[in-house]
């Protein structure tokens, strides 16, 4: 383990722990992830945001509407 100092008070010293690596590919709280995916599927903010952002023809006015 090694410690990484970050410079502001919002993030304390982080200690890297290689024991946690074994969980990287697992979903520890599957119900929460499922709930999030359900909400994201039925709501359009992130998808619409990216769709519009990736469409270079999107008028600025339309992006302004999305942000509201």
């Amino acid at each position, binding site marked *: 383990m090694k410690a990484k100092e970050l410079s502001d008070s919002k993030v304390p010293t982080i*200690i890297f722990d290689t024991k*946690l690596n074994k969980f990287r590919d697992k979903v520890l709280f599957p119900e929460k992830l499922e709930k*999030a995916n359900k909400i994201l599927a039925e709501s359009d903010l992130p998808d619409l945001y990216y769709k519009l952002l990736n469409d270079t023809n999107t008028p600025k006015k339309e992006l302004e509407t999305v942000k509201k």
Partner: protein
Amino acid sequence: MKQAKYVYRSEEQLRLYKFTSEGPKGSVQKIVEYKETSAKNVYNLAFGDYDEITQSFDDMSITDNGDCSKVLATVASTVFAFVRKYPEAWVTASGSTSGRTRLYRIGITNNLAEISEEFVIFGYNSQREWEQFVVDKDYQAFLLTKKGNWPPL
């Protein structure tokens, strides 16, 4: 966050964090997870108790260790760490019960000034729409991202 928080450990990708809650019920290991969702660049934040012996996770347990604010401040602090690593990420979170989601809302409200310095935050309302977070309004879930990601202009 100016509130007291626990020191935490993380794996090197900064997507998993572990810390120990200390209180009258003893030491309870907590784990915070950031998992990719089906939406691009949107990660789900979830956290709960971690039993190192059985290698099991529980986001429904009531620890009652008298340190709820400190635990929430620690989890909030991992958001700052996570977005330092993934500055374009959006992070969504909800409680395992409506009461816990309300608790998150109170935690956000109590730290709104500080959160708003760096993030824009949305609530998922009863009309199933994301709206910019309004104090004292109930939401089913929350979504935040760095200010530079929103608005997209």
